[in-house]
């Protein structure tokens, strides 16, 4: 479970994230949507430790991520993909995955290197990488240099690298960006297949069709705030939110006005309708 507790991020005078609180529960896919600049990527980057938080807490299963050194965040069970692919281009595909399985303790690493510990561990890690590659249909490319693969395959390799360590929270930052229809469909199947009772998935995406077809719950963000949260059906039903997302002129202002007009914060349980948060 990934929890955002009153998270705020200030870049100078700009409040990129403004008192955001929500939970990402295991077993389901949570999509975060919103227009450009809504703060979706900032949220992911904070959870992954690339940015610090200005205030508030981000927790994975109760562990506060901001208290950990950056490299520890992965060991706390959080893995991510990047909006712009960030593979280790010069290394083979399987080596890219092995990076995520490197023993965390440097002493152990050195002992491994000079043969003081059995090689079985290394063999096991390698087998696990090949296993994940096979699951994502990447087995034929295992020994290819990652940077030489086609864009869509690189996206999948990134996904493979993120899941090989068996994370409990998986952040997918625009996984379908730049993919064609067929590749998106394939990605969708893979993401759905990843759904597991102990894995909390966060999907940041612009492809509304993909979001609507695979998300269990959706968080709508605008200007650093959570505008609404609900099931895919709820969000789909709410034409206003769709308009806001699609960026029709005035749509967001209308929603904000509507929300401000309500003043009272209406919380409706999931499945029963939208949850409005006070802006």
């Amino acid at each position, binding site marked *: 479970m990934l929890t955002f507790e009153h998270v705020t991020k200030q870049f100078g005078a700009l409040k990129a994230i403004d008192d955001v609180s929500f939970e990402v529960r295991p077993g389901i896919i949570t999509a975060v949507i919103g227009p450009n600049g809504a703060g979706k990527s900032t949220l992911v980057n904070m959870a992954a430790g*690339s940015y610090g938080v200005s205030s508030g807490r981000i927790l994975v299963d109760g562990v506060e991520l901001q208290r950990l*050194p950056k490299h520890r965040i992965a060991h706390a069970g959080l893995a991510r993909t990047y909006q712009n692919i960030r593979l*280790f281009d010069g*290394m083979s595909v399987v080596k890219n995955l092995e990076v995520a399985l*490197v023993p*965390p303790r440097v002493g152990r690493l050195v002992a491994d*290197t000079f043969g003081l510990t059995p090689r079985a561990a290394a063999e096991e890690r390698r087998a696990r990488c*090949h296993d994940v590659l096979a699951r994502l249909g990447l087995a034929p490319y295992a020994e290819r240099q990652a940077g030489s693969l086609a864009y869509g395959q690189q996206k999948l390799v990134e996904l493979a690298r993120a899941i090989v*360590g068996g994370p409990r929270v998986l952040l997918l930052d625009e996984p379908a960006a730049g993919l064609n229809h067929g590749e998106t469909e394939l990605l969708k199947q893979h993401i759905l297949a990843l759904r597991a009772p102990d894995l909390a998935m966060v999907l940041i995406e612009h492809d509304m069709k993909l979001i609507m077809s695979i998300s269990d719950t959706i968080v709508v963000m605008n200007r650093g705030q959570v505008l609404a949260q609900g099931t895919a059906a709820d969000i789909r039903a709410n034409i206003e939110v769709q308009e806001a997302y699609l960026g029709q002129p005035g749509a967001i202002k209308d929603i904000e006005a509507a929300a401000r007009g309500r003043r009272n914060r209406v919380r409706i349980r999931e499945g029963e309708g939208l949850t409005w948060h006070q802006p």
Partner: protein
Amino acid sequence: MTSDPPQTGGAAAGAQALAPPRTTRVWPGALAMALVPVLALVAGQFLPAYPLRILDMILLYAILGLGLNIIVGYAGLLDLGYVAFYAIGAYSWALLASGQFDIHLPFALVLLIGASLAGVAGILLGIPVLRLRGDYLAIVTLGFGEIIRVLMNNLDGVTNGPQGIARIDEAHLFGWTLSTPQDFLYLLVAMLVVVFLFVWRIQESALGTALSAVREDQDAARGCGIDTTRVKLVAFALSAFVGGGCGVVFAAMQRFVSPESFTFWESLIIVLVIVIGGLGNPFGALLGATLLILIPELLRAYADYRLLLYGMALVIIILARPRGIISRPFGPSWLMRRLGGGKC
């Protein structure tokens, strides 16, 4: 290491990629590697002293190149002050086995001490500078190299300053006296094999994977759970350890050390050894050292134009092979694939 089959085409490579992963094929690589010491040992039997001395220098620089490769080739951190570690090793032997303080420790022990001191210096240097990247790191390491040299130059009471330390002991290793270039050839061949295996192990291990990840994309590596700072420190220490060991051998070979031997020029030569030979590639270091030591020797006849021609030769090599002569990275696995047709 010359019987490479022609490069496989795209289709063949695809078919090869489809084959199930095989375990490492060691023999072809080991065979190629064994060829180098055998050739060197044969040469040791027949060559006169002068060419042997050149051969010694080639081997010494190849070992230095292998050591520097850990930090520059694998971790991708440009260290322009590598000579500092070499100097620490050299002065270890000069001070611990000479009349300077009348200390006469055995060679094997000093080899360990000198390498370890250099390793510790590597960590001490690494702690403050590893926040820096690229050019900034290069400049700071360059400064470190100069600081060590200036220190040796000015610590008159300890190092005799610019006059250097002479009257260094003859090295004895397990009852074997190391005095002629031939003796050192054997020692250096043994060291080359050991360091080669050492570097190879690093490359094929999880540590090597971690270092490569740091080189490719430090932030993504951290995102994957790599403790980038410590991994880089380990690389610095291992690299410095090798440099220190070379320094000890150098001092034992020359039986004289002075700060003059450890200028920035030396650091540059060692960087060139691996850049010319091929970064991140153990065979590259050997090839690079051969060229960089041999070319100036061959140019002795043209004394006046020697440096000019040397520079021109280097420029031509860099122009022709911008990624080093053995340009495919990550040597042994690649070599074994080429020689054995297998995968690793």
